């Protein structure tokens, strides 16, 4: 077939090229150009326009097989078997929506709005579609109970707020060229993207002479591609290595003393902890070597390099913060950035949440009237009537502006299953009766899936908006089939925040009987007796209200026409440039106006598990805990390059690319009689999964990696044949709200042996 050079030629052959973009919850948001003929997408291209090109990865390029998957849900479904059994009958939209509305009215009347649990997910990342409209609908209906905490980053976000008072702590990626040394700590953008072009800038930085060190329990693709040096580290011990680096820097007087005095608060307490003056244990490299398995000399060398080869970028990834005390690692990393004076300068980096450019929220664009400022200690206002006026959680950073909503009316996301099962008697804010689930495969992606299945089975009513019959959808009473981004109009802001926007033009009509989340709400609103005002607007009208608020989108129609708006930066973004250049004029957004090495807000919590100065702490599922006698292997649940969380599972083009088996070191495999490619079971007290072994040198001994996102598929005895990592993870957040996805102890056995032992 001939290639189309231009739109005219394309149109003549019946081909239309529609500018859209990939819009799931990965680290990207990339340009896609859909070649459409006779109402079908027949090919995809990505960005072929002006630099910088926002090129889609394999996941985006494979999208046709998701769009046209035979497994796409095509009609509304009503449960006919037991909850979770997965037996459904197709019904009409009218019947489905009537049933949803009737159950909502019934539960509201009997138990109040508080009993309605809303679980919005990140499955769609457009500004318009996904959970936005259902959230507005439920607010108008009188409110709902929801969660706080996001698995990806909650520990990193807490640390970012506590230390800097903001989540905008990142540099634009072009600034990597200014770094003499780049330390990629638990950061694998080759697979997780971390905004498009990040890997490309890392390659360029390496090519022009930056030295790159990767610290990770796995020899990741990022380590293989970019690292001059790979330092494997025992999971959950990152804070110990960071403290030991601080010990070298402080005891050898390599700190940036002027920076510390001008810009930070609490250094003395930190120094005393590092030197062991508070607890008698100096945090030397020898001390850390025993904990981390990293040789003391390696730790000392890296510390010296980091302190002397300025500017140096310590990029503290989020994975090591997805642990039982994850915020300690993130806080330690930020403190190391501060005491070496690597903050606010080109080529440096501050750690923290690492957003560089705000394309996702508009709060900072609105002028705040100081007179309107509320004292959150007396109650936090909310548009959601169920939450309005609730007191802040005592373990939150409620005195700061931004970050996680501090309301005590919410339940930590990792405790949602426990809250459903135990309700107010268990200390939770509500007795939950129904769940309204949108764009979320929560049963798969929240920790402790087996408990999640019990919880969903216990509810009176579950409705799920979905594109596929996921584990979560299998536990619904009514499943409402939703279209994909190819079948509707939306705007996609970049993931963490890069200077561009993508307009997702609708490429094709909705498949079969599917609808957008917004269309569903348009039809549900009158059934609930709600004012239709919001829902009567067209998709483009609502999108215009988004773009109007953004001064960096000067022309909505041009964005729609071109499909992408790339905002040129006069120079690289450097976080805290103003704060460092003119501290008197530009205080940090913390309570003290300084970088808080010791955080007074944390000190008020008075909890030894979350000290005001960051520390290395153990926990009940750490390698040195008593439980490690029974379950001696540490589980990692890293991100796969062929899925986006649980989205894009079951896409044949992606599934054939590489094995999704559990990574296990040859020594650990040999000790258990496990051969490469063999069926194995991985288990602990929470659950048991069946998968295959990928025996590889690329993971350190004592550690097993299961890529998160595989679909939870328990058999009759409860063994998860889908190999979902969260069948094994712990549903207990850290004091700062971090999700312990990388803090589970497990044992592994050949599947045949495991089956024999069970008999």
């Amino acid at each position, binding site marked *: 077939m001939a290639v189309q050079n231009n739109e005219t030629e394309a149109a003549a052959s019946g081909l239309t090229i529609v500018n859209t973009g990939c819009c799931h919850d990965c680290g990207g948001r990339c340009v896609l150009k859909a070649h459409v003929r006779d109402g079908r997408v027949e090919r995809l291209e990505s960005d072929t326009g002006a630099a910088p090109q926002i090129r889609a990865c394999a996941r985006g390029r494979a999208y046709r097989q998701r769009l046209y998957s035979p497994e796409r849900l095509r009609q509304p479904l009503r449960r006919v078997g037991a909850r979770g059994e997965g037996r459904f009958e197709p019904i009409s939209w009218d019947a489905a929506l009537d049933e949803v509305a009737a159950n909502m009215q019934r539960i509201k009347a009997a138990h109040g709005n508080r009993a309605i649990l809303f679980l919005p997910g990140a499955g769609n990342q457009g500004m318009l579609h996904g959970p936005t409209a259902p959230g507005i609908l439920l607010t108008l209906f009188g409110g709902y109970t929801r969660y706080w905490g996001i698995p990806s980053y909650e520990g990193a976000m807490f640390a970012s707020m506590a230390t800097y008072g903001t989540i905008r702590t990142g540099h634009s990626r072009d600034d990597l060229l200014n770094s003499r040394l780049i330390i990629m700590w638990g950061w694998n953008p*080759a*697979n997780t993207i971390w905004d498009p072009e990040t890997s490309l800038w890392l390659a360029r930085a390496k090519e022009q002479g930056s030295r790159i060190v990767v610290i990770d329990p796995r020899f990741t693709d990022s380590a*293989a591609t970019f690292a001059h040096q790979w330092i494997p580290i025992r999971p959950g011990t990152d804070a110990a290595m960071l403290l030991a680096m601080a010990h070298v820097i402080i005891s050898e007087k390599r700190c940036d003393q002027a920076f510390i005095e001008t810009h930070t608060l609490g250094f003395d307490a930190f120094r005393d902890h590092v030197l062991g003056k508070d607890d008698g244990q100096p945090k030397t490299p020898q001390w850390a070597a025993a904990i981390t398995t990293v040789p003391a000399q390696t730790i000392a060398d890296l510390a010296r390099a980091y302190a002397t080869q300025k500017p140096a970028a310590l990029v503290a990834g989020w994975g090591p913060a997805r642990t039982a005390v994850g915020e300690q690692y993130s806080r330690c990393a930020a403190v190391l950035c501060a005491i070496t004076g690597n903050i606010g300068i080109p080529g440096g980096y501050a750690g923290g949440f690492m957003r560089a450019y705000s394309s996702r929220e508009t709060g900072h664009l609105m002028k705040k009237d100081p007179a309107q400022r509320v004292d959150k200690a007396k109650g936090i206002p909310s548009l959601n009537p169920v939450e309005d006026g609730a007191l802040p959680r005592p373990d939150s950073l409620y005195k700061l502006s931004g970050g996680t909503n501090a309301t005590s009316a919410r339940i930590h996301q990792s405790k949602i299953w426990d809250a459903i099962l135990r309700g107010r008697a268990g200390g939770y804010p509500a007795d939950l009766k129904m769940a309204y689930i949108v764009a979320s495969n929560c049963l798969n992606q929240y920790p402790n899936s087996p408990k999640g299945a019990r919880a969903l089975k216990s509810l009176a009513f579950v409705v799920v908006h979905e594109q596929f019959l996921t584990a979560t959808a299998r536990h619904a009473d009514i499943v409402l089939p939703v279209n994909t981004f190819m079948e509707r109009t939306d705007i996609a802001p970049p993931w963490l925040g890069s200077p561009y926007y993508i307009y997702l033009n609708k490429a094709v009509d909705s498949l079969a009987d599917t609808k957008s989340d917004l269309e569903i709400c348009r039809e549900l609103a009158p059934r609930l007796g709600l004012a239709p005002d919001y829902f009567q607007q067209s998709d483009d009208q609502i999108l215009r209200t988004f773009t109007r608020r953004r001064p960096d989108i000067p022309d909505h129609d041009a964005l729609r026409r071109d499909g992408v708006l790339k905002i040129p930066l006069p120079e690289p973004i450097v976080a805290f440039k103003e704060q460092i250049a003119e501290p008197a004029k530009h205080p940090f957004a913390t309570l003290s106006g300084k970088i808080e090495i010791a955080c007074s807000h944390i000190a008020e919590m008075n909890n030894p598990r979350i000290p005001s100065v960051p520390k290395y702490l153990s926990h009940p599922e750490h390698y040195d805990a008593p439980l490690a006698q029974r379950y001696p292997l540490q589980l990692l649940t890293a991100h796969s390059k062929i899925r986006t969380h649980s989205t894009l599972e079951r896409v044949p083009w992606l599934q054939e*690319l590489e094995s999704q088996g559990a990574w296990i070191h040859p020594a650990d495999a040999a000790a258990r009689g496990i051969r490469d490619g063999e069926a194995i079971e991985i288990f602990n007290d929470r659950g048991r999964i069946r998968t295959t072994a990928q025996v590889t040198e690329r993971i350190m001994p004592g550690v097993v990696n299961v890529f998160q996102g595989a679909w939870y598929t328990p058999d009759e005895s409860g063994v998860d044949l889908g190999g979902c990592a969260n069948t094994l993870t712990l549903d207990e957040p850290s004091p700062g709200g971090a999700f312990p996805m990388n803090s589970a102890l497990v044992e592994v056995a050949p599947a045949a042996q495991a089956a024999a032992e069970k008999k």
Partner: protein
Amino acid sequence: MPQYGIYFDQTRCTGCYTCVVACKDWYDLPAGPASFMRVKCIERGTFPDLFAAYLATPCYHCAAPPCVAACPHQAIFKRETDGIVVVDAEKCVGAAQCPKRCLKACPWGAPQFQATLDARMQKCQLCLERLEAGRQPICVEACPMFALEVGPLEELRKKHGDQPQAEGFKYLKRFEPSVTFKPKEPAQP
């Protein structure tokens, strides 16, 4: 005639497989054994001293292609204009009717057969329709690392150097594959 060839910067390849999937989408190849572009992972060493590299493997459009010589039905030939090795699906008699000597002849696995019995040989033809329209092949335009380039081999060699070796690739003089690399070397700490 200019011989078209491929430049691959192995130091940049992260093994993301975008080229593989972009190609499958563009040519509408189902999941399965046929893939015009493959990415091979090369791993060496024992923990913690490891090395890993990826090799993008399309057809290297040899100057003396062994597949052309091997085909009993003269279905594979080399274009005079650009040296691109193409297959005539009409002449290919299909998997079940043929000893498939092209498969054994190519040391890099370029000839592809889908799983069906009557599958005709298919292969990377360097997106020649795209080249003729002034575009780069789909894999080149897809690579997020800008690690691939296609053009007259002499121009590629002038621009990037003449380096016929890379990790996982064995250069065979008798076939003269039309490729030049920036090979990946083990890390020097």
